[in-house]
């Protein structure tokens, strides 16, 4: 009998705990209260961008409504983050690396409409970027274009396309180069990609992990990276240690943003969540975007920061690969071209 008491007590403790946990999470979602919490689930390299942007938005929102907004961030590989939201992570807004990852949330959970990308200007991508090479200072291996990455003496660091959005852009940028070089000959393109990925030393799960592998652990001759991530490495870790190389052709990366409507509704954050994303398109927002080395959509602000964004030939996902849904299926789903060309070395 006594043992049963003990058991009941323990069950009560567990129950109490979960109650505490859920009530503390719910308390942040007061509708009319003076303070509001917003959860932004984002991909890896946006840590610095949103740190600065969240502060600016909080000041703006306080001035406009008197409400104190605290934006909480979660960062990781874009695919993995999308997975978490699908599994039940209650993001008010998602700011991921590519539209395919937000499509996945819309298709699998219905928590936002399938036409989410038409809700905000520029296909809901307030900033763009591109894929560049980060090499060690002085470019000792003379890496100037994608073809150099297939050389036997070059070792590459790039994240895993299965989990990282940036890695999928990297892969497609290389594919676009090979496609032009070999005039759409699939066999030759695949041979090129196979050669390139056989030079990959470390396949991290997210872009930031790949960057630290290259910059801090000193592995590899070249990091295939987001332009913004490459600039950040220069600034954080010393301009004398690395340099950026722009390839002859790359891809226009369009990281989209969206409100996860159903989550925002149940959290009572619809208004502030929409205002948050709209603020990205304002002059203040675009300025912060440019300062963090993302290419702003606003033409005059892009021009103002023109020096850090050289003009190179860029293909687009819609124009060249027929959109993310098609590209995802062809290249990255199980049995896609990535699975065909990549064999892990054991």
């Amino acid at each position, binding site marked *: 009998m006594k043992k049963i008491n003990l058991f009941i007590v323990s069950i009560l*403790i567990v129950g109490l*705990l979960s109650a505490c*946990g*859920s009530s503390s*999470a719910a308390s942040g979602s007061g509708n009319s209260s003076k303070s509001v919490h917003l959860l932004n689930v984002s991909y890896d390299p946006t840590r610095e961008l949103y740190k600065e942007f969240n502060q600016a938005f909080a000041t703006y929102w306080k001035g406009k409504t008197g409400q104190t907004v605290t934006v909480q961030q979660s*960062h*990781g590989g874009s695919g993995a983050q999308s997975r978490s939201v699908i599994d039940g992570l209650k993001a008010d807004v998602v700011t991921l690396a590519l539209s395919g990852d937000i499509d996945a949330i819309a298709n699998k959970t219905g928590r936002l409409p399938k036409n989410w990308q038409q809700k905000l200007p520029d296909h809901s991508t307030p900033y763009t970027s591109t894929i560049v090479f980060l090499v060690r200072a002085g470019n000792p291996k003379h890496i100037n274009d994608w073809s150099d990455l297939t050389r036997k003496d070059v070792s590459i660091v790039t994240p895993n396309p299965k989990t990282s959005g940036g890695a999928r852009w990297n892969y497609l940028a290389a594919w676009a180069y090979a496609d032009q070089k070999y005039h759409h000959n699939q066999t030759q393109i695949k041979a090129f990609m196979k050669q390139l990925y056989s030079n990959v030393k470390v396949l991290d799960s997210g872009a930031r992990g790949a960057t630290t592998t290259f910059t801090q652990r000193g592995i590899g001759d070249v990091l295939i990276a987001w332009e913004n991530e490459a600039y950040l490495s220069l600034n954080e*870790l010393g301009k004398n240690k690395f340099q950026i190389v722009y390839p002859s052709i790359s891809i226009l990366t369009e990281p989209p943003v969206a409100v996860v409507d159903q989550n925002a509704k149940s959290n009572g954050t619809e208004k502030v969540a929409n205002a948050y994303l709209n603020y990205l398109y304002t002059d203040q927002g675009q300025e912060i975007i440019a300062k963090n080395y993302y290419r702003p959509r606003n033409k005059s602000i892009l021009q103002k920061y023109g020096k850090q964004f050289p003009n190179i030939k860029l293909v687009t996902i819609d124009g060249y690969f027929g959109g993310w849904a098609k590209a995802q299926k062809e290249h990255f789903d199980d049995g896609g071209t990535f699975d065909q060309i990549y064999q892990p070395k054991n």
Partner: protein
Amino acid sequence: MENMIQSDVSKQTLSVRSSLKSAIVRRLFISLVFLFLFCFLVVPLISIFFEALRQGAGVYFSSFADPNTLSSIRLTLIVTLAVVPINTVFGILIAWTVTKYAFKGKNMLVTLVDLPFSVSPVIGGLIFVLLFGEHSELGRWLIAHNINIVFNVPGIVIATLFVTFPFVARELISLMNHQGTALEEASLVLGAGAWQTFFRVTLPNIKWGLLYGIILCNARAIGEFGAVSVVSGHISGMTNTMPLQIENLYNEYQLDPAFALASIMSLFAIITMILKMILEKNVQKAANGRP
């Protein structure tokens, strides 16, 4: 030893040579082991403190002003305070059941206790995402009723419970097996109740083993990364425990705060080691000092 060698060379040559040889071998082994431990355990540990304090005490302490770091410390404490008592109670319960009663399926129960040790923590975390996330009926129902288990504090508590479950139970099972049931039987025969027997007879006998298990459980609860990482959702200031916050800071290029936080965790580890050393002696005594 040298006198002996000189006085009786002819007879003892062989055995002296071999003992000399073994003395050299012994010294070699001991110094090798020490060298290995020094290089792979002591040096990295010292380097954490070195890195943490490299920029001076000012930078070191300012690392803890970051609200996200503070919240990670708070969360780790909450999780530990929730997990250790629960696992202690259930650990005692299971050890008691397994060692004092005879029943069918007992061996299976003992094997089950070890399950969290043989399952990778990542899978431990994944189980709960599948169970309480959008995948299952239960998860969908809970989420619809605004009860969020995964990507929230309860999920972290449950995942940590899973991973740290065996420590207390295992320690007590082996100790109580060793001690047998004679004293409890005597106590019951002399008219004491079950509760009284437990508190007056069993508990005093197992207290050192219990403490030992609690300390190991505590250390793992503070340090668990894999299982917690899967269920956390990595929300800065909300669901990042200390180990997750260290990774987060490292990924944000904030090396000094990352090492500062790592040094706190290392300090916990060192305190755990010292307590463990003290307790180990007492556990040995408790196990041997029985009739």
